[in-house]
C-alpha cells in the first residue's frame, strides 16, 4: 500500500521531536497526560515570543476503528461488540446498539422489555454519575481545587466526608453494578439487548432487590446534592470559580427529551437549543444526519461534531458557530425540566442559583450531573415499583428483512448515536458511530485553550495552573474516543517550557501522589 506513506504517520521518535522543535520557532509547552493514550487528552500549548499563549491544542491520540471491523459481523452482535468501545459506559453503547436493532428489524419491544431496558439503563446512569462525582470530578470541589493533589482523590473525599460516607459511596456503586449484572448478565459489557426485547426477564426476587436499592439510591442522590450544596455552593470561591469566564462558553446545547421536553436518557427526540436557550431544532433519531456533521483535523484522532446547517467555523463560539455541547449541563439546558418530582426541584434550584437558562459555565456540569443522578434514582424507583416489570413476555421476534437502523440514547457523557446498514442476512455492511464525547470535542478544545490563555503567561507556570487546566476538560467527564476517565490528582502532568532552539528551560512535573517537582 504505497499511498500509505502520505497518509501514514511516521513512527514517533526522539528524531521526530528534534525535528519538531527545530521547525517550531516558538516556545512550546506540552501538557501531556502522557502515554496513556486511551481516551487521553494531550494538550499542546504554544507561546509567542512575548510568552503569551498563542494557541493550545487538545489532541486525542487514539483510534481502534470499530466502524470498519464491525463490517461483516451479525447485527445482533453489535450491542456486545460496540460496548467494548468503552468499559466505563458499555451500557450506553449496548443500549444505543440495541435500539438500532429494533429500528433495523422494525420491531417494537413488549412493555416489560422496554421497562427492563430503561431500568437497567437508569441504574447504570446512577452508578456512572456517582462514580464520576466521588471518584473523578467531585474531589476538585469536595476537597478543593487548591488542596494538595495527593488528597484530591476518592480517599481524600472519604477523608473529608468521613469513612462511613466513603464506604457508603463504594457500597452504593457496587450494589448498583450488581443490579446491572443481575438483569443484564455483566456490569461491564452487559448482554441483555436483543432486537425487539431483552434476553432475560426479571424475577420477582430481582424486582425486590431493585426496589430496595432504588430507595437507597434516591436517598443517596439527595445526600449527594446536600453534600454539594454544603461543600460547594456555600463556598463563594467555588461559586466564583464556576462562574469565572475561564470556564464559560456560549454554544448550542443538545440533549434527548420526552414528549414534554423533559430530560430522558433512554428514548425521545433530540432537542437543540441556541446559546440564547431558544429551541433551535427538535428531531427524531432517524433524522440525525440532517443536523449533525463531523469535522476532521489532521492533528487529532477524534472527529469534531458540529451542527450541519450552522456549519463548521473553526473553534469559535456563539450563534454563528456550529459547535455545540452535550452531557449533563447541555441536557439540562436543552430541556424544560425533569420527569420526576425531586429532580425537578433540584433542576429549578440549579437554574435559579446560576442565573437562569442557559447556563454556559462548564464547571456547572458537576452540579447538573447530580440533578441527573437524582432523576435516574427516582426513575429506577418508579420502574422497579411497576407490577408489569416481571412479565415474562420480553421478546418480539423480527419478521422484517433487515436493512438500516439507527439508535440514539443519552450516555452519561452525552448524546450517543449508532447507525447500521446490513445485508439481507443481517450482516453489517456499514456502521456509523458518533460517541458522546465527540459532540463535546470542539468545546473541550476551546475550554482548554481558553483556560490556558487565561492562566499561563511566560515561562513561569504557577502550580495551580495544571489542575485548573485539567479541571477545564474534566468537567465534561470526557471519555475521548469513549474510552475512559483520568483520575484526579493521579493525573501526571508536565509543563515543559522550551526556548527557541527547543532546549528545555524549565520543567514542571507533578507525579501521581501529587507532589510537584521543579527540575
Amino acid at each position: 500500500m504505497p499511498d500509505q506513506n502520505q497518509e501514514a504517520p511516521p513512527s514517533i521518535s526522539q528524531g521526530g521531536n528534534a525535528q519538531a522543535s527545530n521547525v517550531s520557532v516558538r516556545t512550546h509547552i506540552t501538557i501531556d497526560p502522557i502515554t496513556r493514550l486511551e481516551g487521553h487528552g494531550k494538550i499542546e500549548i504554544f507561546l509567542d515570543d512575548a510568552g503569551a499563549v498563542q494557541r493550545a491544542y487538545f489532541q486525542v491520540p487514539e483510534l481502534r476503528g470499530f466502524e470498519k471491523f464491525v463490517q461483516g459481523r451479525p447485527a445482533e452482535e453489535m450491542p456486545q461488540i460496540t460496548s467494548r468501545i468503552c468499559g466505563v459506559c458499555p451500557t450506553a453503547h449496548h443500549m444505543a446498539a440495541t435500539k438500532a436493532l429494533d429500528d433495523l428489524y422494525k420491531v417494537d419491544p413488549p412493555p416489560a422489555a422496554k421497562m427492563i431496558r430503561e431500568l437497567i439503563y437508569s441504574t447504570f446512569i446512577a452508578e456512572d454519575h456517582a462514580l464520576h462525582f466521588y471518584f473523578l470530578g467531585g474531589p476538585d470541589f469536595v476537597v478543593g481545587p487548591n488542596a494538595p493533589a495527593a488528597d484530591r482523590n476518592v480517599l481524600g473525599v472519604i477523608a473529608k466526608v468521613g469513612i462511613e460516607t466513603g464506604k457508603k459511596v463504594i457500597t452504593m456503586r457496587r450494589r448498583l453494578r450488581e443490579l446491572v449484572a443481575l438483569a443484564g448478565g455483566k456490569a461491564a459489557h452487559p448482554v441483555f439487548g436483543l432486537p425487539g426485547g431483552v434476553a432475560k426477564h426479571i424475577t420477582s426476587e430481582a424486582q425486590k432487590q431493585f426496589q430496595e436499592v432504588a430507595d437507597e439510591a434516591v436517598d443517596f442522590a439527595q445526600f449527594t446534592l446536600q453534600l454539594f450544596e454544603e461543600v460547594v455552593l456555600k463556598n463563594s470561591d467555588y461559586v466564583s470559580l464556576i462562574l469565572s469566564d475561564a470556564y464559560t462558553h456560549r454554544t448550542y446545547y443538545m440533549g434527548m427529551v420526552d414528549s414534554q421536553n423533559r430530560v430522558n436518557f433512554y428514548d425521545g427526540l433530540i432537542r437543540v437549543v441556541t446559546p440564547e436557550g431558544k429551541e433551535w431544532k427538535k428531531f427524531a433519531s432517524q433524522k440525525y444526519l440532517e443536523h449533525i456533521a463531523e469535522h476532521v483535523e489532521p492533528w487529532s484522532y477524534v472527529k469534531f461534531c458540529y451542527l450541519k446547517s450552522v456549519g463548521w467555523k473553526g473553534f469559535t463560539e456563539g450563534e454563528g458557530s456550529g459547535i455545540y455541547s452535550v452531557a449533563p449541563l447541555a441536557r439540562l439546558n436543552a430541556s424544560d425540566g425533569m420527569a420526576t418530582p425531586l429532580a425537578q426541584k433540584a433542576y429549578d434550584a440549579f437554574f435559579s442559583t446560576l442565573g437562569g437558562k442557559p447556563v454556559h459555565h462548564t464547571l456547572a456540569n458537576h452540579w447538573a450531573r447530580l440533578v441527573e443522578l437524582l432523576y435516574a434514582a427516582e426513575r429506577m424507583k418508579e420502574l422497579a415499583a411497576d407490577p408489569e416489570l416481571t412479565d415474562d413476555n420480553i421478546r418480539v421476534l423480527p419478521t422484517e428483512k433487515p436493512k438500516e437502523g439507527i439508535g440514539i440514547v443519552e450516555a452519561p457523557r452525552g448524546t450517543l448515536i449508532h447507525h447500521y446498514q446490513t445485508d439481507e442476512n443481517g450482516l453489517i455492511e456499514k456502521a456509523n458511530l458518533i460517541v458522546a464525547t465527540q459532540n463535546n470535542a470542539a468545546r473541550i478544545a476551546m475550554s482548554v485553550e481558553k483556560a490556558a490563555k487565561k492562566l499561563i503567561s511566560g515561562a513561569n507556570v504557577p502550580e495551580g495552573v495544571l489542575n485548573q487546566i485539567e479541571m477545564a476538560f474534566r468537567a465534561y467527564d470526557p471519555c475521548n474516543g469513549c474510552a475512559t476517565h483520568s483520575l484526579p490528582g493521579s493525573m501526571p502532568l508536565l509543563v515543559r517550557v522550551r526556548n527557541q532552539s527547543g532546549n528545555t528551560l524549565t520543567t514542571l512535573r507533578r507525579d501521581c501522589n501529587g507532589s510537584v517537582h521543579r527540575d
Partner: protein
Amino acid sequence: MLNRDPRASEISQDRFEPRIVAFFCNWCTYLAADLAGTSRLKYAPNIRVVRLMCSGRVDPQFVLDAFAHGADGVFIGGCHPGDCHYQEGNYKALRRYRLLKRVLKDMGIEEERFRLEWISAAEADRVRSAINQMVEKVRELGPLNLQVKDAPKASTEEVCV
C-alpha cells in the same frame, strides 16, 4: 513429439517451489502413497507428509499451524466416503474442512491452498495426479508468506505504514 514423460512435473531451479504439508490417513492415502512408491510413480517433491491414523484426527489447528509456519498449501488425504477404517472419521474431516475453508477464505487465504481428497489404498495414481495438480495450482498462486509465528516480537515491518 508427444511429451509423455511423467517427470514433466518435476521441479527446476528458477521456479517458485511451494511447500505443501499433507496429512494422510494411515489406512488409505498413506498406503496409496506407499503404493505410488512401490509403483515408482513420479510426482512433485514439494509435499511433506504427516501420517495420522485417520483424517478425522486432523485438528484444524494443524492446518492453521502449517500455514502459520510457512506452508503454501495444506493437503488432507482420507478414505473415500463409506470406506473409513474408523467408520466415519472421514465425514468428520469433511465437515471440518468445509467450515475451515470458509474461515481461511475470510482470512485471505486462497481456496486452492487447502484441499481435501479421498484416496483409497489402491489409488496410487490419484496420489500422483492430486499432488501434481495441487503443486501446480499453488505455484500459480505464489508464496503465501504467512510466517507469523516466527516473526520478530518487535515487528518493524508494520510501522512501515
